[in-house]
């Protein structure tokens, strides 16, 4: 077993060697610009892109004409939300999203508020799921877009996208979902789920970084987005810029592998995850965050009460895990996702996200269990709070005096 053990597959995944192998020819002999229409180098590159487009489309049950390649999910989220806001401004200016979205969605919405958008940020229940009645109540005739993520990046909960899309459509709004964590891990079908737009990315599904896609529905209804990057008119005018051919080919291969191996992989990882979770819950005062039934198979987010979060991460230095989203992990703020479930700052700080992946072995899971237990027990041994708790003092009722 190689240390450190990597259980942070929600942040990024290792590239599958088969993906890298598929990419290599496009770094060497097939180096052409896919937009070069006059010669064989251009055609070879275009062929690679076309094939990848089919592979990606197939994974989500879309047609290849509905796939717009981007530099990643963040760009896809930006393009989808800003593009719909600009394209449908005659119809309305209201967007509904949730407080637990990724920053790529939240920050884009905040930016649009300055441009005249009205944004409703739906709260979530204690289990991380939205209340469909609240969604229904938030819909107005001005609502143009409901943007709610498929699977959450920190706690893994899967929102009821079918029901959400039905509500959005009933009120004449489009439904967009950030599929970054769900696509490739669980079956996602744009027709069955009623998805009109969806951003997702290669590097969360064992493909390369720097490449992703925005799905844009072409039929029932035909959805249009205003381009955010102007230029040569690539990607049917929706996203200009020379195509990242090798990256796209890798993304396509990654999508194909996910489609073929998803079922077995999900079962295997769910078993590992359940073992990890039940073992860690043997520790006193430990809790799973988020709904455990509607959850991505490879994710478990667990809080260890009376343990200081940073100390915990340091005590598990050979275990690469995260206390939240990678994109905000440099800040010392507690996770806004966990806080929105009702966790206190302290408890949010002492939570660990375990993200298993294709290359995770049972040995690594066992290691993670052992290391976490040891670290939690050790830190609690040093903790006066833990001592007080063990003595039966209700810490919530203690009045602390400032020194």
């Amino acid at each position, binding site marked *: 077993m190689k240390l450190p053990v990597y259980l942070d597959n929600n942040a990024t995944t290792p590239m599958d060697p088969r993906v890298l192998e598929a990419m290599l020819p496009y770094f060497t002999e097939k180096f052409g610009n896919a937009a070069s*229409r*006059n010669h064989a180098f251009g055609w070879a590159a275009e062929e690679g892109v076309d094939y990848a487009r089919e592979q990606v489309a197939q994974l989500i049950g879309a047609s290849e004409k509905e796939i717009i390649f981007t530099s990643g999910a963040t760009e896809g989220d930006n393009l989808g939300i800003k593009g719909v806001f600009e394209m449908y401004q005659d119809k309305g200016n209201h967007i509904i999203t949730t407080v637990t979205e990724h920053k790529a969605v939240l920050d884009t919405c905040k930016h649009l508020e300055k441009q005249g958008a009205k944004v409703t940020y739906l709260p979530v229940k204690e289990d991380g799921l939205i209340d469909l009645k609240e969604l229904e109540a938030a819909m107005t005739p001005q609502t143009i877009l409901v943007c709610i993520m498929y699977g959450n990046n920190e706690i893994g909960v899967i929102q009821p996208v079918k029901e959400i899309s039905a509500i959005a459509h009933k009120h004449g709004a489009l439904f967009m979902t950030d599929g970054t964590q769900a696509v490739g891990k669980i079956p996602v079908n744009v027709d069955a789920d009623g998805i009109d737009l969806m951003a997702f990315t290669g590097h969360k599904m064992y493909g390369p*970084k720097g490449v992703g896609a925005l799905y844009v529905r072409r039929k029932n209804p035909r959805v249009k987005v205003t381009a955010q990057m102007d*230029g040569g008119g690539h990607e049917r005018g929706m996203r200009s810029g020379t195509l*990242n051919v090798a990256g796209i080919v890798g993304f396509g291969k990654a999508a194909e592998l996910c489609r073929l191996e998803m079922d077995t992989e999900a079962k295997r990882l769910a078993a590992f995850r359940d073992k990890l979770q039940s073992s860690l819950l043997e520790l006193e005062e430990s809790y799973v965050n988020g709904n455990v039934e509607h959850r991505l198979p490879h994710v478990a987010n667990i809080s260890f009460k009376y343990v200081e979060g940073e100390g915990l991460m340091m005590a598990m230095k050979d275990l690469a895990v995260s206390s939240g989203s990678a994109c905000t992990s440099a800040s010392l703020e507690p996770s806004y996702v966990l806080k929105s479930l009702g966790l206190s700052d302290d408890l949010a700080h002492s939570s660990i996200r375990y993200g298993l992946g294709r290359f995770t072995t049972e040995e690594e899971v066992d290691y993670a269990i052992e290391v976490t237990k040891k670290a939690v027990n050790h830190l609690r041994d040093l903790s006066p709070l833990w001592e007080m708790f063990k003595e039966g003092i209700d810490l919530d009722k203690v009045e602390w005096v400032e020194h």
Partner: protein
Amino acid sequence: MRVYLDNAATTPLDKEVLKAMYEVMDQQFGNPSSIHAHGREVRSIVEKARKTVAGLLKTSPAEIFFTSGGTEADNTAIKCGILDHGIKHAITSKIEHHAVSHTLEALAEEGLIKLSFVDLDERGNINYEQLEELLKSNERSFVSLMHANNEIGTLTDIERVGELCEQYQALFHCDTVQTMGHYTHDLSKLKVHFLVCAAHKLHGPKGVGFLYINHNVKIKPFIYGGAQERNMRGGTENVYGIVGLAKALEIAYADMDEHQKHIQGLKTYMIEQLKAVVPGIQFNGEIDPQKSLYTVLNVSFPPMDMAEMLLFNLDIAGISASGGSACSSGSNIGSHVLNGIGADPNRPAVRFSFSKFNTKEDIDFTIQKIKEIFSATS
């Protein structure tokens, strides 16, 4: 034999670049934003690459922002540069790349800016006196002029434009996609606010580039979501792409004089040979080595029947060249660059563009094939 003379569209990846990228792709997969060891290792790789780029351009790493390529960098500079500074007037030319011209046109169509165009002569040189007039007679301007034209190779005196912009407090955005790594850009001296790079034009990978933003200019992000690129550009970094970019620029700077000499030699040789074998041949844009990008040669062939078949015939003969920009090579509306300099639409134009990997044999082969095509049609 297959000869690739479309290096202005994209260049083959340098083997050394691939090697540098491969090591990262094979060994390092972390997310640079993660605080554990997997993340910290790639974070330092990204920052090392930024330092390399900044060092070569003689500027600070804090001014280099990695993007998904030249188009995103141009869009960021233009949209954010104009809108975040409340600028109402932009000056550009009729022969800019579409990443620039379409972005400016979109802003003008929305009524956000007035757009003025500098006069060009028949070789694509800008009229600097008129540029000064435009700067003088308008409120604070945003100037977007490319360093070298991607279709005809004509160079802009960007030192001079930079001086003028400084004099009139204008913001200067220079699309350097075709010149980055082909000439030195000394940002300790050059007066420019935004400068752009696409790695795949200098034997680096596709899907990655950077935007230089002068430290005196503050803009808001173009892509939101995440604290990456010091809060300027959301999105997980394309780590191997960034590594490839830095390596490509490093190689380009190390061997620049040698490559320039080699490539200019090929271009001069091709000009001489074409003059000798095709009567009535002309060239679009500057061909004077002092005024012209050494990697681009735009040939204006004599009017012929089946002019549109020329590129097709060249491809059949094993020569990959282009009629203009790859980004618009599927369209039939003709080149906006050639229209912009008033080129004769009856004379078929072919852009041959060279790289360090081309040889004299490539040129001889191309000349031979052109000779055959023309003797068959006349």
